[in-house]
């Protein structure tokens, strides 16, 4: 067998006996990781679902360019050229005065016999944009650009609150990042403390190992493994539990959710983020135990 693998296996044996000897601190550490990952996970779920909501709203956002009744054919074709030149535009739809009136009458069905004797509604272009990162920015830029064009009476686009909601989502992202960083730092402190306890319970043994020719790496491996194991079991425990709760809630409430907002789907944390969370916890465990073993070795060498 490969000697690096053997070193790891021997290390793992020590790790397991360390965990057995300090069961309680290990469990507390794992629980803390699980709770932190849980907090982050719940935030992520909320974030993803808001994001999904935003995306589905965004699909309906369009810019409507109202035309003056006196617009000339050449002004019209200038406008069309402008639309064509804009790569962000997905589609344009021309709505004549007549069609606008038909649609309006259709909406006001109870007063279908409405007849003013003239058509008060302007002709317009309905413009849809490609989905992209800065879609709302493109939309507002385009609206500003088109507003001053000759023949354009006014420009209306997306409800303002969608823009505000998008800004809120950016704040959410920053908030999530902040929470993630804070929790990570806290976890590093807690895990490194657990590992330190583990190291000190084996202090004599470690010193002897070094005196009889063990490499520093050989001495460190069991503790690094312990940290990694804490990160792994904490995150898996947490995500497993959340997954189970998610499936339960989805089965219970998805139908009523769909009746509130059509097409809305209650989402779990997306796969890449799931693996990121597990990876992050493992990394935290590793970094924390690395810090502890490093400090211990430094102290040992200073003497």
């Amino acid at each position, binding site marked *: 067998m490969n000697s690096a693998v053997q*070193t790891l296996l*021997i290390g793992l044996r020590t790790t397991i006996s360390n965990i057995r000897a300090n069961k309680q601190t290990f469990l507390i550490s794992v629980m803390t990781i699980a709770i932190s990952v849980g907090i982050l996970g719940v935030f992520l779920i909320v974030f993803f679902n808001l994001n999904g909501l935003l995306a589905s709203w965004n699909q309906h956002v369009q810019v409507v360019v109202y035309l003056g009744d006196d617009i000339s054919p050449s002004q019209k074709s200038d406008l069309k050229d402008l639309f064509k030149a804009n790569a962000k535009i997905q589609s344009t739809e021309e709505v004549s005065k007549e069609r606008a009136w038909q649609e309006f009458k259709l909406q006001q069905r109870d007063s279908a016999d409405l007849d003013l004797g003239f058509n008060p509604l302007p002709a317009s272009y309905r413009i849809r944009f490609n989905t992209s990162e800065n879609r709302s920015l493109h939309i507002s830029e385009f609206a500003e650009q088109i507003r001053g064009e000759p023949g354009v009476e006014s420009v209306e686009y997306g409800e303002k609150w969608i823009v505000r909601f998008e800004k809120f989502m950016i704040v959410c992202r920053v908030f999530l990042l902040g929470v993630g960083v804070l929790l990570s730092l806290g976890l590093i402190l807690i895990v490194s403390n657990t590992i330190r306890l583990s190291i000190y319970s084996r202090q004599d043994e470690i010193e002897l190992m*070094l*005196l*009889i*020719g063990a490499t*520093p790496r*050989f001495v460190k491996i069991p503790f690094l493994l312990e940290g990694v194991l804490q990160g792994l079991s904490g995150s898996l425990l947490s995500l497993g539990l959340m997954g189970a709760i998610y499936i339960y809630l989805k089965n219970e409430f998805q139908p009523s959710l769909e009746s509130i907002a059509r097409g809305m789907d209650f989402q779990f944390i997306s796969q890449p983020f799931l693996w990121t969370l597990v990876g992050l916890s493992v990394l935290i465990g590793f970094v924390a135990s690395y810090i502890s073993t490093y400090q211990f*070795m430094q102290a040992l*060498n200073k003497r």
Partner: protein
Amino acid sequence: MIQLFNVVKNYGSGKPALNDVSLKIDKGEFVFLTGPSGAGKTTILKILFGWERFDEGQVLVQGINVGKLDAGNIHTLRRSTGVIFQDYKLLPNKTVFENVAFAQEVTNHDRKKIKFKTWEALKNVGLTPKKDSFPAQLSGGEQQRVAIARAMVNTPPIILADEPTGNLDQEISAEILKLFEEMNQNGATIVFATHSQDILRPGKHRVIVLNRGEVVSS
């Protein structure tokens, strides 16, 4: 093989523990290191396998410049050295067998070989019947023999023994001495610190006498 050039060691306060010590021990030699308590015997041994640093001078062991080693590579020196500590340093929560096997586990990964060599070493010191006992269940002399078994189990080219017969009666001391002489005949260089005149008396081996950190005769 082992050379000290004008080595000075200060533990901080007071007189230096070693004051301008120069020594040469050849490959395959068996030397006694003796002198009154506090003379610096343990200090020399500790310097020889990099447990203690020294303040002045130079130390060469098997061509390795000991003063230049750091935490990252000191194991290269220690792997060629078997040490019997004055206070044994047995692990209390491991059995006799595990204590001896431990010295191999940190350097050698072949489990079958470890079992075999551990058994062999325990046989050499006559402790096979006690292999499953814990150190606390052993007499001082038995603990000492476990420490010897642990030092010899890797068949290192150098054995540093700090009072390995300190706790043994004359009869067992003689047996232990024979063990070291056997290791010596198999090629190991032995540095044997002791203040027992009984052991020195036969005069078979070179004796280095230390006093107050200085070499009195060698």
